[in-house]
């Protein structure tokens, strides 16, 4: 493909000498310009989509084999067919999407609230030394506290209400998001900050136009982890706290399966939880992250 770079206007300001210079410069530009081609679809399908499909197929095949060999009794290890039937039952009863939606909407809403809290928190921790010294270590510590640990406390505070579920989700996700932003800000090359200062992007302008965009890769990593923690915390809360007021989400479905000793339902619920988590990662965070990295020339084509 021909570069359009070299066809740009070559100003006439300085007469012949200038035209010669412009030509030389255009040549240098053309010789040293990088083009970043996107990987063709076929390649993507072959190298990115096919391997996981093969892996899943293998797992199902091994599972089926174990089932046929009756390694465990039926009620402990149902076959893929039975789990599929459980899924199909839910589908025909029309409860499948209700269950997923109940959990997903809670997860997403909780996650959005966590962003709204975690972002300013991270910004303050990163930029105010006193706050950093005061709560930085606590924030990091909270990240390694399993959010299940908050469930009993949340039940005592809020009872078996949606507030209780959201409290657990927030306690799980906010530290990740805040920490992601703090480390994103910590990784900004000082040169960008100085360049921002020089062009007059100071104060809130500096935060909006330099600090936040520069910290975006780290922030996104934090968001990704924040979502994973939201989803886990939500499941922990839903499994432990079942009440008619709370509706039936995936966690409650899991707990119902245990109650009935119905392994097909349990496995079905586990698979759904996994699928939703993976789907969000693949459909939301993956493309977002790739776009950010590609724009900055940080995505090395393989």
């Amino acid at each position, binding site marked *: 493909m021909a570069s359009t770079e070299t*066809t740009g206007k070559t100003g006439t300001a300085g007469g012949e*000498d200038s035209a010669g210079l412009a030509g030389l410069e255009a040549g*240098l530009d053309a010789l040293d310009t990088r083009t*970043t081609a996107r990987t063709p679809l076929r390649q993507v399908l072959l190298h990115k989509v096919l391997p996981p499909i093969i892996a899943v197929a293998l797992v199902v095949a091994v599972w089926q084999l174990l089932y046929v060999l009756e390694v465990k009794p039926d009620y402990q290890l149902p076959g893929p067919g039975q789990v599929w039937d459980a899924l199909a039952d839910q589908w025909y009863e029309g409860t499948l999407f209700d269950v997923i939606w109940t959990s997903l909407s809670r997860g997403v809403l909780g996650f959005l609230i966590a962003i709204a809290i975690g972002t300013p928190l991270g910004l303050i921790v990163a930029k105010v030394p006193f706050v950093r010294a005061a709560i930085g270590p606590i924030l990091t510590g909270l990240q390694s506290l399993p959010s299940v640990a908050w469930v009993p406390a949340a039940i005592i505070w809020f009872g078996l209400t949606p507030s209780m579920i959201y409290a657990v989700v927030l306690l799980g996700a906010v530290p990740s998001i805040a920490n992601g932003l703090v480390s994103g800000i910590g990784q900004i090359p000082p*040169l960008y900050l100085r*360049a921002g200062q020089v062009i*007059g992007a100071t104060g809130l*302008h500096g935060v909006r*136009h330099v600090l936040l965009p520069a910290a975006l890769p780290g922030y996104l990593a934090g968001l990704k982890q924040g979502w994973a923690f939201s989803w886990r915390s939500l499941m922990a809360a839903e499994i432990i706290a079942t009440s008619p007021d709370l509706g039936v989400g995936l966690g409650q479905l899991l707990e119902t399966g245990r109650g009935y000793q119905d392994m097909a339902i349990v496995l079905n619920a586990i698979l759904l939880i996994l699928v939703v988590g993976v789907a969000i990662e693949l459909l939301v965070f993956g493309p977002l992250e790739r776009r950010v990295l590609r724009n900055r020339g940080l995505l090395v084509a393989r």
Partner: protein
Amino acid sequence: MSTAITDDAPAGPAQAGDGPAARITHVSKTFGRPGEQLLVLDDVTVDVAPGEFVTLLGASGCGKSTLLNLVAGLDAPSAGTIEVPGGQRPALMFQEHALFPWLTAGKNIELALKMRGLAKAERRTEAERLLELVRLGGAYGKRVHELSGGMRQRVALARSLAQDSRLLLMDEPFAALDAITRDVLHDELTRIWTETKVSVLFVTHNVREAVKLAQRVILMSSRPGRIAREWTIDIPQPRRIEDTDVANLSLEITEELRGEIRRHGKH
């Protein structure tokens, strides 16, 4: 106030007539805690006249970047005063391009225009004009990583010019480029300086670069950084490094610079 965008005054260099573009008076700078202090700049006094091109020449580590940072307001002097009249923030170009990789070339320039207070409607045209000025008319939508080193520095120059400051500070902006590209950019810079009549304070450790570009070369000594000597150069532009006048002066200044460096070996 050297480019076309001014309120109602006639555009052009005539505007810049009032007082120096920068006045650095008896400036000293020390780093470190009391007890283990390092005196980096010692009683430095430099004036940059409006429209003047001054290069500050000195060995690595003599305090050139420190001085530019002080003038740019990124740091405060330990003693002395720095005046940049007009209440403007000086533009500063670094050795690395310092463009924001999350913005395109054009948007990098527009950000500087926005910070200058230019209305949204005018930014695009002005950014295109500045890109034309550095001969990168087609680069508006290019990402920083898609540009070559020389092109990045030209976009960085356009972004600096977008600040429409009377004073342009340049901290070894071409040091990381290959020799051919650097030569071309010298000529471009001279052309742009002639067109815009912006005052330039250009820092380098490269004697030929200093002689090729400047109207005045100021030699700094090291540890502590002081003004050692000064040359006024009236060889007309465009200059070639091979010209006898340029070559002879370069040799003379190189000898002087080496002398400055040698003095430190004797302690």
